[in-house]
């Protein structure tokens, strides 16, 4: 691997830019593919470039069928995102755990006493209102939204934004009674059928009660839905 290729990959990864590295296994010749342009000593046929692109979109690495297996495409897809509303105690565990599991984590809480750098070292914090923050971020099909504040003033706007987005996972902390009230409020706002997309109570039932245990159950459910879909 040429030094320039490694540098480009590292900066691309840091910027969450989707990139493919294509390698000819016979001699190690390589090129990078950024969804539009090819860069490097290895050339690709239009068919090969199209296969590299479709693998990149799928987030899969594989030998290229269009090269008879002579070329291998390593897809570095943009990481999935976890947007956590509420810089609460559970979030102090959930955010670093999710970052370790490969998520780009953003914690949103307009209460600056909660969303402080000291409480969340190295985690991206946004201190806007959740609906503004989520609009700014732009939710897509690789986004998961979890609300943990217990406060409808903060949770509800985030849930409305999430329900109106293609986010692959939406979860809200709160017991069944809290959730029933939430369903009533969101129904009044005309979100009817969409409300079923909310996982509540949030997380897999692991029987844990501590903030760290709840964080594990939430992260486990997000990973499960991401890998297996919402039919679980």
């Amino acid at each position, binding site marked *: *691997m*040429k*030094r320039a290729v*490694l*540098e480009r*990959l*590292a900066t691309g*990864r*840091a910027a969450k830019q989707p990139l493919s590295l294509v*390698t000819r*296994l016979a*001699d*190690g010749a390589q090129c990078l593919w950024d969804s539009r342009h090819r860069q490097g000593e290895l050339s690709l046929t239009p068919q090969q470039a199209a296969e590299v692109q479709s693998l990149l979109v799928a*987030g*899969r*690495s*594989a*030998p290229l069928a269009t090269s008879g297996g002579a070329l*291998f495409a*390593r*897809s*570095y*897809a943009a*990481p*999935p995102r976890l947007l956590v509303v509420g810089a609460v105690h559970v979030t102090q565990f959930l955010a670093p755990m999710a*970052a*370790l*599991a*490969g*998520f780009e984590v953003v914690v949103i809480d307009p209460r600056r006493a909660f969303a402080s750098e000291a409480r969340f070292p190295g985690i991206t914090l946004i201190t806007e209102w959740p609906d503004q923050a989520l609009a700014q971020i732009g939710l897509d099909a690789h986004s998961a939204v979890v609300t943990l504040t217990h406060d409808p003033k903060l949770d509800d706007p985030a849930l409305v934004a999430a329900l109106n987005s293609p986010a692959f996972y939406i979860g809200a902390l709160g017991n069944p009674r809290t959730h029933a009230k939430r369903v009533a409020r969101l129904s009044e706002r005309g979100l009817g059928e969409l409300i079923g997309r909310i996982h509540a109570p949030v997380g897999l039932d692991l029987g844990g009660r501590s903030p760290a245990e709840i964080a594990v159950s939430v992260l486990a459910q997000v*990973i499960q839905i991401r890998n297996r879909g919402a039919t679980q």
Partner: protein
Amino acid sequence: MTAEPSDILEQAKRWREAGRGVALATVVGTWGSSPRQPGSHLVVEQGGEFVGSVSGGCIEGAVVSEALQVIAEGRPRLLEFGVSNEQAWEVGLACGGKVQVFVEPVE
């Protein structure tokens, strides 16, 4: 999942910047049951330190020693490990799968 390759590439970059010889190993093919998916990386520096994985720990030792030779020679190698291939490699995969690993020097 996905944060891990960026850490591994970052480590490769740091070792190169420190003037260390570095090789990058990548799973490029798997057959049968194999613990790591194609694309999984293991990065090795000249002293034998490594980060990442290409299996559940079964073949890392062998890949690291091959990587040290790749660093010394400056040429890539394509390795294959599997239970049915013990003549070529002393190391087998306990899981019964087969895995192909590309090891390349980082310039």
